[in-house]
């Protein structure tokens, strides 16, 4: 226990130290060596988190922590906790972060904000690990916003670029919408359960009580009210879940809050790889997985989760089909894959026994996705670096020979994303399909999940297709190098290649090592105390076959379209011109959101401003003038006539006499 506690604390402390150190010393002292604190810290933290992973068999661990906020019934300590779910997240984050950091050394080497970059980078890692290690909802929320801040800072890293500045603001604002939901959820949890501690909340919602249909013995004391179990499980829980989901949707870029993620690609590519592909965007998935004990009680919310996931996955995949910006394709792909994870998480709707398996599937996909998506992004980064920042597929091509290593690793990553066996993506995607398949049988939402399963398979096909398209367009065909590339047009250096190799190795291996072949991942994750009892679900051959077919079909079609018969795509585009148009304009989602949300609100603001100026302030001024008007009204009395004065006085006197005599 003690040793684990120290581990946890160190994992938390080390990156923030690196961040502060870099920020303090970076610009003046470290300069081009600013990456060292970060690399050292991440390396150390990775070792620690692997150690943590292996010590997980001893059960969850806690640090002692300290009081952070204690007022009234609100008692929030800073206390770290690690269970298998956390451990997996920690390892993922640290591994990817370390590799991305190494890549960044090469990628960012002559940027004036070098130190700033690494400082924020470390800060991000700190926030991310604290997010997954938090033991209560408030801490989670704090670091949830913390990663959002880092995301904001990194997207707007090149703040001189108006697009970057706008993208950063957009990301923050859209995330704030999600955070609004999360904050409401936190308030509701606090008022309903009287605590924000995960364990406490989950204990009050113990699955057994629900399964046995028994009420709690006694009632939960919430504030001054006494709530019975039935009261809690009703609409409050559903509201909590929907609010939590809103938060997750914001952070994990689910439809319709996904609009910020593609824009976020304005930031440095390694940052996109880490934050907007591998780690931060999965925080939503983590949140929902963490809150599984709550979600179980709200099957409607879970179904909604799956629907949102399905819509997101499909829409993002459709948009990705026609994008020309390599990074943007990857961004939409990330959105799509996150949709996948949401589908998986939602698949336990009305079928509590499936919950653990669903979580495992989602988290496993998160795990594998981190590797191959980071790999793909870094590959993009490598290309971008070589092409002088140009990443438009219409302007580059045939880089196979120029950048062989990049090509190879990109191919592995693409295959992983497309779900080609035996790479990581295949195994995790397969599990999700299995989970969905299971959900479509024997749950109240069977029909819905059948549909979602169909969407998932369609999405798998589309994924393979657009991945293949990107891959073929960039690396095959005649060599096209834009003039911006200049002398950069060569294979990247060691700093950038080593991470590519590392991630490629991960993409190849993690599926086989931990996935269905060994069930290591499953076994490990089921040790989590908060997850319901695990019930193994066995995949069917049918699903595997369909999955392989979809992946292969998509990839093959891409090969045909963009390698063998390059004239086909334009003909297709003409045939389906309207669809092509919609897709390439991202279904006009940004515009629609702008039209129904942003512009009315801005109009409202302008109106309120006028209202304030003329109505509210006018009213105040008017009231201020009332005494003046009254005075004006009395002024004729002072007409200067002596006898009138005497008369008025006498009249006043008469009134007094009459009034007072009448009283007697």
């Amino acid at each position: 226990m003690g040793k684990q506690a120290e581990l946890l604390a160190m994992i938390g402390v080390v990156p923030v130290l690196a961040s502060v150190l870099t920020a303090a010393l970076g610009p003046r002292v470290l300069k081009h060596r600013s990456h060292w604190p970060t690399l050292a810290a991440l390396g150390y933290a990775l070792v620690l988190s692997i150690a943590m992973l292996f010590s997980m068999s001893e059960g969850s661990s806690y640090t002692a922590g300290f009081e952070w906020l204690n007022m009234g019934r609100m008692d929030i300590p800073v206390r770290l906790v690690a269970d298998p779910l956390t451990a997996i997240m920690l390892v993922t984050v640290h591994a990817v972060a370390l590799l991305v950091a190494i890549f960044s050394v090469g990628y960012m080497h002559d940027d004036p904000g070098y130190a700033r970059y690494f400082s924020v980078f470390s800060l991000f890692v700190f926030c991310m690990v604290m997010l997954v290690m938090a033991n209560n909802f408030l801490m989670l929320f704090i670091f949830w916003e913390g990663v959002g801040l880092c995301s904001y800072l990194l997207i707007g890293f090149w703040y001189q670029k108006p697009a970057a500045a706008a993208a950063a603001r957009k990301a923050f604002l859209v995330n704030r919408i999600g955070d609004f939901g999360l904050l409401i959820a936190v308030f509701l949890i606090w008022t309903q359960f009287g605590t924000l501690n995960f364990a406490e909340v989950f204990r009050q919602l113990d699955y057994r009580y629900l399964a046995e249909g028994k009420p709690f013995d006694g009632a939960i004391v919430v504030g001054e009210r006494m709530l019975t179990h039935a009261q809690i499980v009703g609409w409050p829980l559903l509201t909590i879940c929907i609010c939590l989901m809103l938060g997750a949707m914001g952070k994990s870029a689910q439809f319709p809050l996904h609009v910020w993620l593609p824009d976020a690609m304005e930031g440095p590519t390694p940052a996109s790889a880490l934050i907007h592909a591998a780690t931060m965007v999965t925080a939503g998935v983590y949140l929902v997985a963490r809150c599984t004990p709550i979600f179980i009680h709200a099957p409607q919310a879970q179904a909604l989760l799956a629907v949102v996931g399905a819509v997101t996955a499909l829409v993002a995949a459709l948009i990705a089909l026609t994008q020309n910006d390599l990074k943007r394709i990857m961004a939409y792909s990330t959105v799509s894959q996150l949709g996948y994870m949401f589908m998986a998480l939602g698949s336990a709707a009305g079928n509590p026994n499936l919950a653990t398996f669903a979580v495992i599937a989602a988290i496993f996909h998160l795990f594998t996705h981190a590797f191959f998506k980071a790999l793909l992004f870094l590959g993009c980064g490598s290309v971008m670096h070589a092409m002088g920042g140009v990443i438009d597929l219409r302007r580059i091509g045939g880089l196979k020979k120029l950048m062989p290593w990049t090509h190879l690793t990109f191919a592995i990553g693409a295959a992983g994303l497309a779900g080609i066996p035996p790479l990581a993506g295949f195994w995790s995607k397969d599990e999700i399909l299995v989970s969905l398949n299971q959900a479509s049988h024997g749950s109240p939402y069977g029909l819905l999940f059948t549909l979602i399963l169909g969407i998932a398979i369609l999405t798998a096909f589309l994924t393979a297709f657009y991945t293949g398209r990107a891959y073929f367009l960039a690396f095959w065909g005649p060599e096209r190098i834009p003039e911006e590339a200049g002398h950069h047009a060569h294979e990247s250096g060691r700093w950038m290649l080593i991470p590519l190799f590392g991630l490629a190795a991960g993409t190849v291996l993690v599926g086989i090592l931990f996935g269905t072949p060994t069930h290591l991942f499953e076994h490990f994750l089921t040790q989590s105390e908060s997850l319901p009892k695990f019930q193994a679900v066995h995949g069917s051959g049918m699903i595997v076959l369909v999955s392989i077919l979809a992946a292969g079909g998509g990839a093959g079609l891409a090969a045909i379209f963009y390698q063998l018969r390059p004239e086909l795509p334009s003909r297709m585009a003409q045939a389906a011109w309207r669809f092509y148009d919609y897709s390439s304009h991202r279904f006009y989602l940004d515009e629609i959101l702008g039209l129904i949300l942003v512009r009315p609100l801005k109009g409202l603001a302008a109106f309120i401003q006028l209202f304030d100026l003329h109505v509210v302030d006018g009213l105040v001024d008017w009231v201020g003038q009332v005494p003046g008007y009254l005075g004006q009204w009395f002024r004729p009395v002072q007409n200067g006539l002596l006898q009138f004065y005497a008369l008025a006085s006498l009249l006043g006197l008469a009134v007094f006499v009459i009034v007072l005599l009448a009283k007697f």
Partner: protein
Amino acid sequence: MQGVYEWMIEASRWVRPEMLLLLAGSGYFLAAVFVSAKSRSWAIASLLIVLLAAIWLPSGDADFATPASFFRHDSFSHFLRGLGLGLGAALILLSWDRIPDRCAAEYFGCLLLIIAGVNLVSAANDLIALFLALELVSIPTYVLLYLLRADDAAQEATLKYFFLSVFSAALLLYGLSFLYGATGSTNLEVLRGAVRQWLEQESTSASSTLPPTLLIAMIMIVAALGFRVTAAPFHFYAPDVYQGAPLLPVTLLSLIPKVAGFAGLYQIVSATLLIPGADAAASPLAASASGLFWIVALVSMFMGNLMGLWQDDLKRLLAYSGIAHAGYMIVGLGTGCSSGMIVEGLAGLFFYLIVYSAMTLGVFAILIALQSRDRTVVNVDDLAGLSKSHPILAVVMACFLFCLMGLPPTAGFLAKLNLFLAAWNTEQRLYRVLALVMAVNAAIGAWYYLRVVGVMFLRDAVKPLSVRVTWPAWIVILLCLFIVFWLFFQPNTTWTWMEAITQRR
């Protein structure tokens, strides 16, 4: 029964300072025929005489009142006579070099008579003495009003003041005659005894047999003295007269008749309403009177403040301000009509009277000091840029104006606070409403005072003022300033004194 001679000795025993003033004043008129002296000499002489009178003023420790005496001396009159002499001295100082030599003797003579008059009002122990003292204030005032300047405006002001004053004197006398008629004596102590006796009978008998004469007397007297203190609806002359008359008499007019009026009102009220030991609620007369004062206070406050908003002429503005302040003070008088309070409305009234005197005198003193031959200060806008040309004077003026608004840290705040406390403490819903009305009025009033402050500080003068302030004016101004702050920071002595004087009777 004493002989006439003893009676006169008895009557004059307590009023030696006033006799000195009267003799001196009359002497001036006489001497002016034979002696031609500089205005300054008359001023010095007057100041010395006032100082001598102040030294002669018997101490206020013991109450020498005897039922039969024409005058009396107790802590109340001691205080008010002190106030009267102080105001007189201040007025003399303000007049220092500003009176043309030709009419200096008459001016200062009248001033001394007025001071004597105001003192006698508070020393009077008889209705006749009270009436005479009030007339002693009025009659020289008529002279003063057109002594200094004989233009149309001054004449019109005098005309209005004179005629309405005579009118009000008639009302007063009518009221006093009924008071005498109801009780059978003009002596205030006897009168008090009679009312007390009547009240005792009243409490034993079931039916209410208040003689309506007493009530009519009350109303008439309130109306007449309301004229002196510029309480609405008897205030009409004030704006016109203030505007028309020269500054010095206006200063006098805004202070002395108010002091005299409130002293007179207190004399009457304390004799007929404030019966020690009698329960306020049991006296229907007290209830009627407090109702009467309620209306008068309400109307005065609103009239003064609402009309004040529109004024450009400084003197006219101050007239309305005076009307409003009279309203505030009458709140104190009204609350004073019910007894058994911790915070006495009457003590509040006299505390307010001191503060009012200090701050109004201060404002007028500054206005007087700013007058010069080539640049008169008539309108509010004439003060523009004062903060540039006379920064200290502007700050002092602002202090007085904030005091008039009732803002801390000036005594104006405590004065209003005491009235608030008194008004709320009456346990009568009506007076609580009045407290609220006071608050509203203080806010309205703040508008026009602030306007003056704003003009002084925030605007630049078209033609800057270049007058040098003379030392007598400085003395008065700084003394007023001192009082305005001292009464805020050290109110306790004064307040205890005020409580004492109003508890004595």
